[in-house]
């Protein structure tokens, strides 16, 4: 769930105009007295209406604003003041709603919209958002959840400074770290899935989609319609809770959104007269067919047709670890084709490592380099195969950050010979959204993932009891910085990265975006289960597949 006051705060706190908030301690003080410096720190484009912008930025702002506006009684001032009060009330309501924990605004389409978009809508002061908030606040304002929400807000205030201004609209609420605070409606399978998604245990657009659908299948199996409602009506709301929980763990992928949309459409089409058991069976069947039709079989079809593009002696360059590209390469290899694969990988996820491992153990000839070696890897490439997170309606490829660099290098090779860039993508990943650059639509991952943590090197045989107990809880990308006790007990001289304290370093920001947008002119062909298309055909195919 998005914190609505958050995006509005970002431009101020992270704008270069306020460099005098060096440490976190005075930051809190500043929050209190923010009504004065605010007009100064405002973003340059709209300095004319500071009073309007002021209140949603700070929950405590209503009183200072009153005091400031009290002496002057011009009608305009009064109007402004009234507006400010109203906005402050809204902000308070939103805060209440936020404190209600992970619960979502109820309603059909709400959870489907990605978090970032919803956040910017609400920041605009849309009355829809506030009324929705009111409703949920009354419904779920439990006293027990309140202090926890307050703590979360506290934490956020500390980190406000670290949001990159350009991407301000993408910073939602901090990702959920535990299952605590999740609604009681959330099914255990979904709870587990949420954590797996967050930790990138389940990673990749199709995998996330399949895992979500399978979890929802279990939700539906365990579901009983409460007395007094019909399945078609209530199940949708029930699923919405699950979906909201998932989106707090990690913003939903396009494929997840598409799958959920299809599922909801199917639920709403169920005749209320159908008995519950039968409806549930048909729903499970629908999920199974959806998975096999849109993903499993689609993958086989794509792998088959993409493998035909591989010829003997080819050098295939791919980026990161796409499951469909892996399948394609393995299919081509099983067909007895002789080719070489060059994998380009990037920090911090290193998804290509797994791909390299799989391909190498299958017997392919694999070359591996990081993103700094693109221009060397691309030199003797004959084809580039890329996976996709999504294909936008304007034909652009929305995929793991770095994909655009690979596609660009392929198209602008020094020799002048262009390397064909082939994207493998199921139609379930097509979306009607459009994107021109990678800034409007994106996902911000935890910047701490960029901080390099060195595993404590134990060279001697005698294990330090403190040290041996530590490596276990430390997982993959989780940095030591997030766990202060660990970093303190390990030897202070081996403190690893100089970025360890980046959150306490003023003016230093880390940016860890997940995706980028590759221009359509870099993509020669999109291989889908419906055939091989140019990127310009994406909107047509999308319309076809959603209308049927």
């Amino acid at each position, binding site marked *: 769930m998005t914190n609505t006051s958050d995006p509005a705060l970002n431009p101020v706190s*992270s704008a*270069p*105009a306020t*460099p005098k908030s060096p440490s976190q301690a005075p930051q809190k003080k500043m929050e209190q007295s923010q009504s004065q410096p605010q007009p100064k720190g405002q973003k340059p484009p709209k300095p004319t209406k500071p009073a309007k912008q002021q209140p949603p930025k700070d929950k405590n702002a209503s009183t200072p604003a009153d005091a400031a506006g009290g002496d002057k009684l011009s009608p305009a001032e009064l109007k402004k003041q009234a507006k400010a009060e109203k906005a402050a009330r809204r902000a308070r309501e939103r805060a209440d709603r936020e404190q209600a924990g992970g619960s979502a605004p109820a309603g059909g389409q709400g959870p489907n919209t990605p978090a970032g978009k919803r956040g910017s809508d609400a920041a605009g002061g849309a009355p829809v958002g506030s009324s929705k908030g009111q409703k949920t606040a009354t419904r779920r304002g439990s006293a027990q959840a309140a202090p926890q929400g307050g703590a979360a807000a506290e934490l956020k205030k500390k980190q406000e400074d670290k949001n*990159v201004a*350009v991407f301000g609209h993408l910073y939602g609420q901090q990702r959920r770290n535990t299952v605590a605070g999740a609604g009681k409606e959330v099914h255990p399978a979904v709870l587990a899935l949420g954590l797996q998604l967050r930790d990138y245990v389940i990673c990749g657009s199709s995998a996330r989609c399949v895992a979500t659908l399978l979890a929802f299948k279990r939700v539906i199996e365990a579901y009983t319609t409460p007395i007094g409602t019909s399945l078609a009506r209530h199940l949708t709301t029930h699923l919405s809770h699950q979906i909201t929980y998932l989106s707090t763990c990690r913003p939903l992928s396009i494929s997840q959104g598409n799958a959920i949309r299809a599922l909801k459409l199917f639920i709403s089409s169920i005749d209320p007269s159908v008995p519950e058991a039968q409806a549930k069976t048909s729903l499970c069947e629908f999920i199974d067919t959806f998975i096999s039709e849109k993903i499993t079989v689609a993958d086989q079809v794509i792998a088959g047709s993409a493998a035909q593009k591989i010829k003997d002696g080819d050098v295939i360059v791919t980026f990161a670890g796409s499951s469909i590209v892996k399948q394609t390469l393995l299919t081509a290899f099983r067909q007895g084709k002789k080719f070489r694969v060059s994998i380009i990988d*990037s*920090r*911090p996820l290193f998804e290509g*490592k797994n791909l*390299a*491992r799989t391909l*190498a*153990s299958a017997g392919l*000839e*694999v*070359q*591996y*380099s*990081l*993103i*700094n*070696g*693109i*221009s*060397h*890897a691309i030199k003797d490439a004959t084809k580039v195969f890329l996976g996709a997170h999504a294909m936008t309606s304007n034909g652009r490829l929305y995929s*793991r*950050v*770095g994909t*655009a*660099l690979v596609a*660009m*290098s392929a198209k*602008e090779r*020094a020799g002048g010979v262009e390397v064909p860039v082939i994207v493998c993508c199921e139609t379930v990943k097509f979306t009607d959204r459009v994107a021109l*650059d*990678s*800034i409007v639509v*994106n996902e911000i991952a935890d910047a701490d993932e*960029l901080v*390099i943590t060195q595993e404590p090197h134990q060279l001697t045989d005698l294990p330090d009891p403190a040290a041996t107990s530590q490596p276990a809880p430390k997982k993959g990308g989780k940095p030591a910085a997030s766990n202060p006790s660990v970093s303190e007990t390990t030897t202070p001289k081996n403190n690893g*990265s*100089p*970025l360890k*304290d*980046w959150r306490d*370093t*003023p*003016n*230093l*920001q*880390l*940016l*860890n*975006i997940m*995706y*980028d*947008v590759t221009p359509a002119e870099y993509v020669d062909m999109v291989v889908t289960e419906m055939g091989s298309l140019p990127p310009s055909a994406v909107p047509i195919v999308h319309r076809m597949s959603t209308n049927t």
Partner: protein
Amino acid sequence: MSPPSAPLTPGLASFLKSLKTNPIDTSIDNLISLLKRRQIRHSRSCATATAYLLRSVVSACRTSDASKLIERVQSVGKRLIAAQPREMVVGNIVRRVLGLIRDEAEDDRDGEFNLSEAGSESQPQTPRASDDPSDSLYGRHDGSALKPLSSLAAHPISMFSLLSHPEPEHSLPGTPGSASPSGRSPGHTQNNDIRAEVLDGINEIIDELGQVDDQISAYALDHIHSNEIILTHTSSTTVQKFLLKAAAKRKFTVIHAESYPNNHEATHATVSGTATNDDELLSTESFQKPLIAHGITVILIPDSAVFALMSRVNKVILGTHSVLANGGLVAAAGTRVIARAAKVHQTPVVVVSGVYKLSPVYPFDFDSLIEYGDSSKVIGFEDGDLVEQIDVQNPLYDYVPAELVDLYITNLGGHAPSYLYRIVSDHYRKEDISF
């Protein structure tokens, strides 16, 4: 080969220290091994080490003949270049020293007509230059280095006297014992004077190496304006100084690509301002305030996010490893895609580089310029099973073609890439380009 007195890790600092005490041939071997083992890495460190070594070589080489001096420097230079052919600054410094010697020799030939006796009264000064190689190290900054210059002005050397006085003593180039100050004969004044001139020139080169970043940063305010978003890559001190200079006057935002895996640690340290323990960097730089201390917002990104952010970037400022005469450059791996992405987004690319990095090399085989590094930085030893199966590559450098660069800023000012060949011909003599 490292000196017993120096407990330092092998590198520039230990080399310069050992240069004072070790005989000249030991020092040459020492530098060669340092270059071969890549214990001296940065192009400026290489250039500085080469310049100091050549100064010792010249001051130790007690030949009477300019051509013999050239021969000696050439032979040392060849060995250094063979030790690390991709470190082009080594060759550049050798070429500049050769050019100095030739210039001096020609000046002498020109001055043939104001021939005067090789005065014996200048003899007291003769031991100075070749007294002890370390002497000149100590006395670099006081005025003592200027003394031979005045003696030269008083007694121009003539070609005639050069030829008419065959070398009586056997201080052949390469004899370690030739560094001893004994055994002077009055007939050598003029040789010492030519050497003093050359030594002066080398000192100027060394001074230039020390000042080059400051000279470049003087142009910073011409190129960075307020509220700009600047993208840079690697922890190049030249770029950092350039940005710092601008930061003193203007507020802008820096996006810093971390250049994983070869330079990310230094980049992180540069960005966060934590003290580097890199002994190759000279001490003044490690005491420098980082950009963030000047109120500049620095955003650190992984290299993969360059394309995503390029649409917001106003200018790309890059450091380089060496610059080629055709305007292309050899820079840290990853630079090429950054420059390419900038070109795609119509963002100007500015390369800051000292003139000493400018190499008279026209590249035909780009692969020969590229050095490959430690692949364990890409996949660590914990993934040993994987490394056995696959081919891991870690290129250290990229060749960036000239058309991707919009502007070069050197200590001489700003130049278009197409103009660089002119600067090359200004700095290196034709006969030295392939010595």
